[in-house]
């Protein structure tokens, strides 16, 4: 039997249509005699039979289009008897021939073929650039890993798996273990977010910077501290009145923060020395104070593993509504880890909304390079004796200030704090945001 395939009629032709069968089942056909007419988008052509014999089967209907190489008919060869000839199927190029390309050459320094070599310095020498970088970023010791790559090579995936294990191991350890748990091996590490007692938590880049900046600020700027109590009853009522509409229109929450920032920037305008920085000078230049010509307010935002202080630029040019939107966007970005370098740069004064966590007073560290930082503490209803000796229930909030005593003294600082208090107490209970 010979299986006849759809021929390729032209170098770019990939399929053909059976236009007409010139023979029927049972008809005899001579070698080189046309037995079918095939049309393609380029040509119409009769196709000669490759053998002499009898048509046994027509596998494709007239008008049907099939890919080149598809069997279209079966012809029983004369005298062939039971012998069969293999179908001349088009050979698809297989890779069983001598491989054209060799497998990727392992680089000379790769780990030895002995998987046990993982765990030795050989692993370190054979580590790819990606493995080295990922190991550094995730504080993984490559030598401690068992590689799953070729010849026991530690792969990038191995490092990432190890990094995930460090994080996910924490909850298991957090469960109270019965009896004294065996101490983890010395030098084992965990992460800041999921610290395991008895392990070393390596500093992330962010944590290291925070540590350095805090020490620098504490060491160079003599901190002085002051606090006022502010009656926020009216501004609170104003906020409550506008809240639903604002959130509907902008998608951001309306907290007390933008009202507070508004009061602070107005007070900074009245006390420009609070919006300044101290230059210690060096041998060549005398110490000086630079009074900033921009008012850019940093907002301290606490995240599980670190602290970020994104900056509302030109905060003095924004309305309460504008401040709410700008702060909302920054807080949103901070929580999603999307803050860019620009978002964090250029702050001249910092506001810390500490009260969200119930704090009543705090002594913040100044953001290095600024003259002060104020906090908003928690708002609570209190019995207050007013100027006319009446007793009232009012919403009260403490506001704390740390100041760089090299830049300003108590006189300016308390004037500034009193000004913030006065402005905030005058806000509300209604108005235009």
């Amino acid at each position, binding site marked *: 039997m010979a299986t006849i395939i759809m021929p390729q009629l032209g170098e*770019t*032709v990939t399929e053909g249509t059976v236009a007409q069968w010139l023979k029927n089942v049972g008809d005899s056909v001579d070698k080189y005699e046309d037995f079918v007419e095939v049309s393609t988008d380029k040509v119409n052509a009769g196709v000669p039979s490759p053998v002499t014999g009898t048509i046994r089967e027509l596998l494709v209907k007239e008008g049907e289009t099939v890919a080149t190489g598809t069997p279209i008919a079966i012809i029983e060869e004369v005298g062939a008897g039971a012998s069969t000839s293999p179908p001349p199927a088009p050979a698809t*190029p297989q*890779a069983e021939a001598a491989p*054209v*390309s060799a497998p*990727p050459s392992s680089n000379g320094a790769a780990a030895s073929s002995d998987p046990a070599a993982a765990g030795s310095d050989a692993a370190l020498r054979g580590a790819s*650039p990606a493995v080295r970088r990922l190991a550094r970023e995730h504080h993984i010791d490559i030598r401690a890993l068992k590689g799953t790559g070729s010849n026991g090579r530690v792969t990038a*995936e191995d490092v990432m798996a190890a990094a995930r294990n460090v994080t996910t191991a924490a909850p298991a350890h957090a469960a109270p273990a019965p009896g004294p748990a065996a101490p983890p091996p010395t030098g084992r590490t965990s992460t800041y977010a999921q610290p395991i007692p008895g392990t070393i938590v390596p500093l992330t880049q962010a944590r290291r910077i925070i540590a350095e900046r805090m020490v620098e600020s504490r060491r160079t700027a003599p901190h002085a501290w002051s606090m006022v109590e502010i009656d926020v009853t009216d501004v609170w009522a104003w906020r409550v009145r506008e809240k639903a509409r604002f959130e509907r229109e902008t998608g951001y929450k309306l907290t007390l923060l933008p009202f507070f920032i508004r009061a602070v920037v107005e007070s900074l305008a009245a006390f420009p020395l609070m919006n300044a920085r101290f230059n210690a000078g060096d041998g060549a230049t005398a110490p000086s104070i630079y009074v900033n010509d921009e008012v850019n307010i940093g907002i301290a935002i606490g995240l599980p593993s670190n602290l970020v202080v994104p900056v509302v630029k030109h905060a003095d040019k924004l309305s309460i509504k504008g401040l709410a939107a700008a702060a909302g966007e920054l807080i949103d970005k901070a929580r999603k880890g999307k803050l860019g370098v620009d978002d964090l740069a250029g702050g001249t004064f910092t506001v810390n909304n500490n009260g969200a966590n119930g704090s009543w007073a705090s002594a913040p560290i100044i953001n290095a390079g600024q003259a002060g930082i104020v906090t908003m503490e928690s708002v609570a209803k209190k019995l207050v004796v007013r100027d006319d000796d009446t007793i009232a229930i009012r919403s009260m909030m403490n506001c704390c200030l740390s100041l760089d005593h090299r830049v300003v003294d108590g006189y300016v600082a308390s004037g500034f704090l009193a000004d913030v208090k006065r402005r905030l107490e005058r806000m509300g209970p209604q108005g235009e945001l």
Partner: protein
Amino acid sequence: MAVVSTTGSTVMNNVEAVRATLYEAMKNDDRTVILGEDVGARGNVFLITKDFIGEFGERRVIDTPIAEASIVGIAVGMAMEGLRPIAEIQFADFIYPSFNQIVGEAAKIRYRSNGEYTCPLVIRTPYGGGVRGALSHSVSIEALFYHVPGLKIVAPAFPADVKGLLNASIDDPDPVLFLEHKKTYRLIKGEVPNGHYTIPLGKANVLKEGSQLTVVSYGLYVHWALEAARSLQDDGVSVEVIDLRSIRPMDKTAILNSVEKTHKLLIVHEDNKFGGIGAEISAMVAEEALFNLDAPIRRLCGPDVPAMGYALPLEEEFMSSPAEMADAMREMVKF
């Protein structure tokens, strides 16, 4: 894809997509001129411009002598003086006589005239092998031209990309070398949106997402790479396949983003390996993403032989295959 106005789509193969796009360009803008060998009375050897001469006349569909330097040289003049010529080199293998007109003239017009002139010229040419085309109908020429600033090179793999990129090439104010792989001409079919649309030059397409290996290709091999990548899916091998679509400008971002994710890069192309497109991609990734690499970059390319032989074993030896690509992918993922 910048779809301007479309109503539905039509299934066509790559050769039909070229024809439909050229037809629309001739219809929509009478500055459009087609010139080349056998594009008129014969209607192009693949019948791409069949009947164009009857409809648009012999002043806009010009049968030229067998003189490629003249075809491109005349087209450069037309382009500088306000026409929108689409020059055809019948087979890429014949492009060499016009090398000076493409590299020495077209690519430099804007720079040389200090921006006074541009050269909105499209040079179309069928290229590539695997069609028993032998020495003079199989060549890949992209690497000979991609070294040249001022020249854009496009090599689509799918009919919808053929149309969008050819439209963008015609619209482009500078010369574009538009490469059409012969074997995909009738092999590859797909939906093509109706109406006029463009696909930006220099934008790659991530055809299949994957996490363990990035495969970059263009032209016919895109289809084979895709087939190979899909064949590995059941074995849990996850390969990302990127169709460059434009060779120059090259979409570096797409490649770098992918390598950042997969840490491994395989480049497959039909053209010779030495100094090929893969060499540039490889150098670029080594320069810009070394610390994302977890394996040596690998290139699976044509061998360094002078041409593709006619004999089937020679042609098969030159061409890669989905099976060979799958093997390379498997080895790289395992590395």
